[in-house]
């Protein structure tokens, strides 16, 4: 699965796509692959304040429960309610319809600390090399 060129990425495998001041956040294809079949997603309520690098929810798969970390600081505007009933979408469409939250950003400059698509692809290529070594 291709990684969208306009997104920014974290080392914990979250992505953020900022449009008109609102950031949409999700987990990457690499993350969903590592997790395996996702069975439950726990997300914050609108209005919740979240901090860059801090956990804001969990993704539960058949083999593990993983924290999801906020790529940037801000306030939650919307959580993806579809995932309550169909968490498995995270496995099939992690970069689009299975987004997790929409948020406002309190500091645009935080985006510069994140990886662009090239850097992220290099990062996971390195990870895959480690794994196969």
């Amino acid at each position, binding site marked *: 699965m291709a990684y969208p060129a306009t997104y920014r990425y974290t080392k914990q495998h979250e992505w953020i796509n900022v449009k008109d001041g609102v950031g949409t956040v999700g987990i990457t294809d690499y993350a969903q692959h590592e997790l395996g079949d996702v069975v*439950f997603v*726990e997300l914050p*309520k609108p209005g919740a304040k979240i901090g860059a690098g801090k956990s804001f929810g*969990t993704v*539960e798969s058949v083999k*593990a*429960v993983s*924290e999801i970390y906020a790529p940037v600081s801000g306030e939650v505007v919307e959580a993806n309610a579809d995932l309550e009933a169909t968490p498995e979408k995270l496995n099939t469409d992690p970069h689009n319809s299975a987004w997790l939250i929409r948020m406002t950003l309190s500091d645009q400059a935080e985006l510069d600390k994140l990886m662009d698509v090239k850097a992220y692809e290099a990062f996971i290529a390195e990870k895959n090399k480690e794994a196969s070594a």
Partner: protein
Amino acid sequence: MRYLPKSPAERKEMLAVVGCKTADELFSSIPERYRLKKPLNLPAPLSEAEIIQYFKARAAENSLGYTSFLGAGIYNHLRSVITDTIIQRGEFLTSYTPYQAEISQGTLQSIFEFQTLMCQLTGQEVANASMYDGSTAATEAVLMAERLTSRRLVLVARSVHPEYRAVLQTYAKNSGLRVEELPMNSHGTVDARALQSRLKDDVAAVLVQSPNFLGVIEPLAELSNLVHKSGALLVVSITEAVSLGLVSPPSDADVVALEGQSFGLPPSYGGPYVGVIASRDKFVRQMPGRLVGQTTDSHGRRGFVLTLATREQHIRREKATSNICTNQALCALAATTHLTLLGKEGLREMAHQNLSKARFALAELEKIPGVRRAFDAPFFNEFTIELPRSVRLVNAQLLRDKIIGPFVLGAAYPDLTKHALVCVTETITRAEIERFAGALRHALEQPL
């Protein structure tokens, strides 16, 4: 279960393997000043014959021939030897947590049946298996409501078991959960007006017990309306599970916390007992404790597995729904066996006998001059009476007649100085009730 100590030769062999001369050398990494220099203060070893002698002597100290009217959270009920036979089978008695479903179908199925029975009895959709006891179940149920509502205040009825309230206070003390008590009215039930005025949008849960600690059945439907209007959750604690054979199930509750001792577990000092939390399906992910689910294997056959284990401590560590990390599987099995033996009609009959005998006892006691029923609300197998003098003094007299008297309510409620909580289960005969009434009448006639 046997305890086989190591022989001196075996100890020597083991020490040789790790390269130590003495057991003390094993502990050489512990700084000198932290080591105990003298032997432990324990009695000397005994031979097998001496141990048998010792326990025979202890067993002979047990009191025999007493009739008990003490309940207050723990109840004496009839139980079958079949229950003990089943739970003493090695497959159940010594089995570990059934993590490996492929070798644990019997244990898993028995737990699944337990959960099913608890759901049927409580009118709820999902039940865990299990908590330590009713008190920890009640507290965990409140914490569950706290997580579900993201609110930090719990209102607890004063008519909830005082020890349950103490357990909740212990948990709340350092967790930031605020606990406030709700008064009771002259009928011995939760003061609905006080409840209404205290229900603000910061209340996570209202904890009530029914039948409550004074024996009285709470008007749960009415309370639930008030509680739900404010967005709080209603947590119902049940200490006398046999009541569910007759009283309507607490289906208005959002979370039910049950003490299952009455189902096949004898009253014994310190337990072990078994607690249960039952709730709505939609709240299952915030429910603590173990759950067994039914599924099909790769050949399409019915099977059972531990499910939703990702909520639990061994996977989620400090983010688990609770720090409970065990369950009471054997006690739950006793309850399952007991209820299966009784069946629906049997449980109803048992409950009915409790109510009838308690009613008869109350009528007999009310005939005694100065004895008064304290609360007029309906009860199950316990009721509160007011005596013309100290319950402690009266109980001391009753004990001489081999009667274990009612619970001294003044011990938990300073305002109920002359109140006694009388418990009458199906184990008490009509003759025993009459003997009790006679002894009480006699005790009250004695000069002070």
